[in-house]
């Protein structure tokens, strides 16, 4: 047993010999017991990362470990729900759960699986092909939770759900995490839906990891500042919005994620390298502000933990 649920070192995946890299140079470490949000724009490599961790794809370079071993060996202890929630259309709901029991002997928790399904008022005799998208999501989650995973990988789990079902299933997941210490990794591009439930963040963009760490730490490492330009030095800005970091002398010592000059007003999101001038107004950014700032500025320096993988295994 190790306290690392998932770790990647220089992980990369390219589809086809000449295809582009879906994921490259991906290095991070996720402690066990966390609820981790994988955030990024469409096509950022979120699904690829989750499929690699689930052992469904072989990495092109680098490696990923889950639960202290390689993904293939951890298969029985990892739950995975793909983005399009594939299920066998010709089976009924009850038969689908029986498949889960058959494929996970010794681990299957029939009661949990049935409870999740019945909470959605699903007739167990109904065929999967006649279910709505949200109902399929429910069955897929029941299948993933029924195997009592230690690590649960969910690719856009809530996309098809109505707000009520979303709230209820999120509650089920969180209860699960709290009760059994299950590590949950879920991807989404809706940041707001993750803010309340996740404590760890992995921001993926352009196939690379841009931000990785505890959400509280990440927020604490960043500061929103606003000040009048020229207060600590001259500026030659013409007043147009400018998001190129490092262009403003006032911000020079700090790592600038995003900056903008409107008239004589300078606002920026920075990672302070030292104390900020007293006359600057500062505030802690929200998670959404932080994520958006990084997504809008692909050239901003990434912030990932320096020591990705300690002597785990």
């Amino acid at each position, binding site marked *: 047993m190790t306290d690392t649920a998932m770790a990647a070192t220089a992980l990369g995946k390219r589809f086809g010999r000449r295809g582009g890299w879906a994921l490259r140079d991906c290095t991070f470490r996720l402690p066990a017991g966390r609820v981790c949000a994988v955030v990024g724009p469409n096509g950022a490599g979120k699904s690829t990362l989750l499929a690699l961790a689930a052992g469904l794809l072989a990495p092109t370079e680098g490696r990923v470990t889950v639960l202290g071993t390689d993904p293939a060996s951890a298969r029985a202890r990892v739950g995975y729900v793909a983005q399009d929630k594939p299920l*066998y259309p010709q089976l009924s709901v009850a038969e689908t759960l029986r498949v889960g029991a058959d494929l*996970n002997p010794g681990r299957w928790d029939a009661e949990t699986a049935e409870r999740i399904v019945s909470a959605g008022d699903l007739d167990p005799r109904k065929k999967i092909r006649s279910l709505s998208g949200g109902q399929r999501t429910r069955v897929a989650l029941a299948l993933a939770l029924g195997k009592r995973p230690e690590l649960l990988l969910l690719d856009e789990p809530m996309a098809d759900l109505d707000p009520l079902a979303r709230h209820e299933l999120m509650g089920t997941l969180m209860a699960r995490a709290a009760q059994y210490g299950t590590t949950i990794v879920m991807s989404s591009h809706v940041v707001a839906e993750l803010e309340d439930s996740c404590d760890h963040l992995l921001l993926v963009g352009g196939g690379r990891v841009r931000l990785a760490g505890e959400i509280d730490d990440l927020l604490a490492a960043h500061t929103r500042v606003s000040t009048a330009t020229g207060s600590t030095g001259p500026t030659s800005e013409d007043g147009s919005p400018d998001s190129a970091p490092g262009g403003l002398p006032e911000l020079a010592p700090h790592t600038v994620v995003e900056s903008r000059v409107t008239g004589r007003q300078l606002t920026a999101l920075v990672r302070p390298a030292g104390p900020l001038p007293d006359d600057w107004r500062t505030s802690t950014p929200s998670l959404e502000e932080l994520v958006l700032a990084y997504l809008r500025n692909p050239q901003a320096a990434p912030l990932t933990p320096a020591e990705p993988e300690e002597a785990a295994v």
Partner: protein
Amino acid sequence: MTAVATKTPASPGPARGSGSGADGRTAWGTLRTVLRLHRTALLVWAAVVLALSGWLVWLTEVAVKDELAEWEACERAGQDLCDMTIGWVGYSESLAWVGLLISYGFVAVAAFAGGALIGRELENGTARLAWAQGITPARWLTAKLAVPALALTADVTVLVLVYRWAWGAHQNLTYNGWTGDDAYLSRGPAGLAYALCALAVGVLTALLLRRALPALAVSVVTSGLFAFVVARYRGSFWPAVTRTSTAGVVDPPDNAWELENGVLIHGRRTPDVDYWACDGTAAEARRCLDDLGVTGYYTTYHPESHYWPLQLVETGVVLAVAALVTAAAFLLLRRRTATASAA
């Protein structure tokens, strides 16, 4: 802000037996899953076997009665060529049709394997659903191959045995011999070998193409082409018999499969000499043949007793190809998905 922010590192979770004793149960559970998924196909196959067997029994026991009576009347009347006038259309033709269905049923197997068995699973992502459960992709593929292979073995064996019985029951009323397309594969183990090979070909094609419809089409064409190519070399799977004579044209024995015949030109076998163009009086013909250099005649053939050796060698060849294709499918799957032992 979070529900589980301060959690002690998850030490041994809830009691979870990743025990080694689960292996047998996993294998059984995987088989049961495959049975559940392909229940309809397996039932349809069984129904087809029943229908064809029933048809054969009906043909051999009931439908043939009229023709037998006609045959006997014809013989009693002392007419010649009774075998030419009776029994071509009804009994013999129906029997040939069933034989063709059994012989070339492997095309349907290829379609099933490429389309429904693997192709659709990869296209819909349900294969990943299975791999995300407790079983490895290799074990999944093993079950996906084993269940249809066992069912095919049972189904085709029954059909071949019934067909052998039906085919041998009224030989005087059948028109096609043992080398015919309808009777060659449907009376021996080669028929089963082609079915298993088509299964493997379908699986490999589907793994390569990852889409149901293209995999269905390609595996049907590939397995059909393969059978066509093997059939061309069928005659060379066992040493043929050659008979020569200096006196006159040699005829192969009854029921033999003649591969080649021709004349000996100064002792060398030459199949394509128009020696039959030499006619006229005996002396004229003799002179004509001498001009051509004909010193004798020959025929190369397989007697009916070669059926089993030929059949067994062909079975071996086809099964070997099936094994290679299966190995390739496992290798491909291994390369695609993460495998253990990445130390």
